[in-house]
């Protein structure tokens, strides 16, 4: 490539924590910036160009107008990369999909509820073709750097296709099921180093289902912990609301 590829960042419904992780690369971000030209990174820079090759998109699609904007970004970008759980799998935004629209709108906006257009939350791939994903809530900065490198080299970025349990064992954690707790590491794509389990919590499933996840078996294992069905359902809906896991 002679010219530096032009990259742009866009965000929809989400916390922008993923772009924050990118900003948190600090010096390494400056290294990456040596190989690309940023034409649109609203969170960091004023300049906003529309001539980009690679689009990084964060957040879920929750409004009809957002779907249109995403299609426009898709038509411009040669490569579209989904950034974070909201963009890759819908993430926590999908929690509202399980509630009656009347209920969630009135709960927040009261009598003005009908002013606010909204639709069920969806991941980007429900609307357009996504070329690469950086999963996680938030994304792992090192993984982001790796995916960017691979995209720039013209490779197809890869993601681990084994469950979090593998990395959790390597991290030396006590299995949450041994402690009588619930955990979604058994069906979740690895790549995070089991960071939540290592920090005392359990896996929430933010990186989405691992290819070939055995959901039936997972439900049996979760039920055996003795937690009631509602608790199991709560955990499965936390991030995986847009997947088959919540059935």
């Amino acid at each position, binding site marked *: 490539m002679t010219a530096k590829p032009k990259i742009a960042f866009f965000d929809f419904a989400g916390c922008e924590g993923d772009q924050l992780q990118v900003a948190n690369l600090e010096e390494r971000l400056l290294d990456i910036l040596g190989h690309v030209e940023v034409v649109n990174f609203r969170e960091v*820079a004023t300049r906003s160009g529309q001539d980009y090759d690679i689009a990084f998109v964060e957040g879920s699609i929750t409004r009809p107008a957002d779907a249109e904007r995403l299609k426009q970004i898709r038509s411009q970008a040669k490569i579209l990369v989904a950034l974070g759980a909201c963009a890759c799998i819908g993430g926590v935004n999908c929690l509202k999909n399980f509630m009656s629209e009347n209920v969630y709108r009135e709960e927040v906006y009261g009598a003005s509820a*009908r002013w606010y257009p909204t639709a069920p939350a969806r991941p980007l791939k429900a609307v357009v073709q996504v070329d690469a994903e950086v999963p996680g809530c938030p994304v792992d900065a090192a993984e982001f750097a790796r995916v960017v490198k691979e995209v720039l080299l013209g490779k197809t970025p890869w993601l681990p296709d084994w469950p979090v349990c593998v990395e959790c064992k390597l991290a030396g954690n006590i299995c949450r099921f041994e402690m009588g707790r619930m955990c979604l590491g058994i069906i979740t794509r690895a790549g995070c180093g089991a960071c939540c389990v290592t920090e005392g919590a359990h896996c929430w499933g933010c990186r989405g289902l691992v290819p070939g996840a055995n959901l039936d078996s997972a439900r049996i294992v979760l039920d055996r912990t003795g937690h009631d069905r509602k608790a199991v359902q709560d955990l499965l809906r936390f991030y995986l609301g847009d997947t088959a896991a919540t059935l």
Partner: protein
Amino acid sequence: MAKKAQSKAEPAAKRVDVHYLTRVEGHGNIVVEIEADGRVSACRWEVPEAPRFFEAMLIGRDYRDVHHIVSRICGICSIGHQLASLQATEDALDIRVSEQTLLLRRLATHGENLQSHLLHIAYLVLPDLMGVDSVIPLAETHKEAVLKLVAARRMSNEFCRLVCGRTTHPQRMTPGGWMKIPTPEDLTLLRRLLVESVPNLNFAVDLVASLAGKIPAFERKTEYVALVSPTDYALYWGEIGSNLDERHPVRDYKSVTREYCVPQSTAKWTKNMAESYMVGALARFNLNAEKLTPGAAAAAEKLGLKKGCTNPFMNTVAQLVECVHSVEDSLAIIDMLLARGLREEEPTPVRLKAGKGAGAVEVPRGILFHAYEYDDKGRIFAADCVIPTNQNHANIQKDMEALVPVLADRPEAEIELILSMLVRAYDPCISCSTHTLDLRPGQEKKLVRFVRK
């Protein structure tokens, strides 16, 4: 970004239309129209962020999950949302926490304030003061300065990671305590990093002090609301204070925030004693300046920030003063923790009961309230979150209304820059504004149509 109709010679109508203001977190628009005779015909601060319905998503959720969900309201203030949420849950379920837990939470508050303030000062505001469009060109022209600021910010990220386990959406905190605490080695390392960052912060203070002339001079009296405490510069805990009002307990937050809808901009606005109020670093400074650590007080003096300041552009300066305060106070907390010895503590056991509670934490952008009602199974049936940026929207609007007539004879580009700087000074975190409405120009009509549907 901004579309302008250029015409020279005679005074012409001016229009500033900033669609999706940059270098802020979330989406906001500035719309200003000035007629040829200098009359201001439109002046609006608008918030078109996608509504996210967090308060509704909390309904029916278990008390142990709630702080993890609200953390996702905002990537930058995820620690603050967790802390306010934990306070509300603990208030509702009558959970008491240990002194060690409180000290660690205060430390977490400092870590987040440093992380967010330094991002705002170095990456979002400094480019305006240096006359460039982002921090990226500064990396070439002012390499030393940028590297020092980047180093300070890396320290703040490391700070959050050492205390909370992760820089964003931390996993260690839980109602009643901590699932995992930093080791003494972690705290010793953090102590060293903090001490090493002092020269970088002093450099930042000198740098901003040297750029003081670039900060627009604009004064508007308004109400300042922040947590106050008799013992310290209140960040994690306190009562609701104001320069115009008596103190209120946190549970009484609704009598202060008094959220209301306005037809023309409708992120929910707030008002207390005056027509609008401001929250954030400047509000905290104005109410609590005498409780700053000595180094922070010295920095304030060097930066020309005095208690009672009514220039909203100085909010960034107040943030820098708070950075110095956070470093010094964190060192004191770490010394206290190391002296008393870190203990592995089980989180306080919870006895489920129906209850109602509220929590308030000073997050980087101002006072944040969470209030929940739980049923006797420990599940939420009503939730309310009042976010700092929402409390500032009305004040931003009133500032713009006061500022635009003064700027009416300046060129459009300058008006646009100063208004953008005004909004950036508030460090708005619009993703946080959980209740907002799309009201881009030209869509007002659509709104009416929508209502009829």
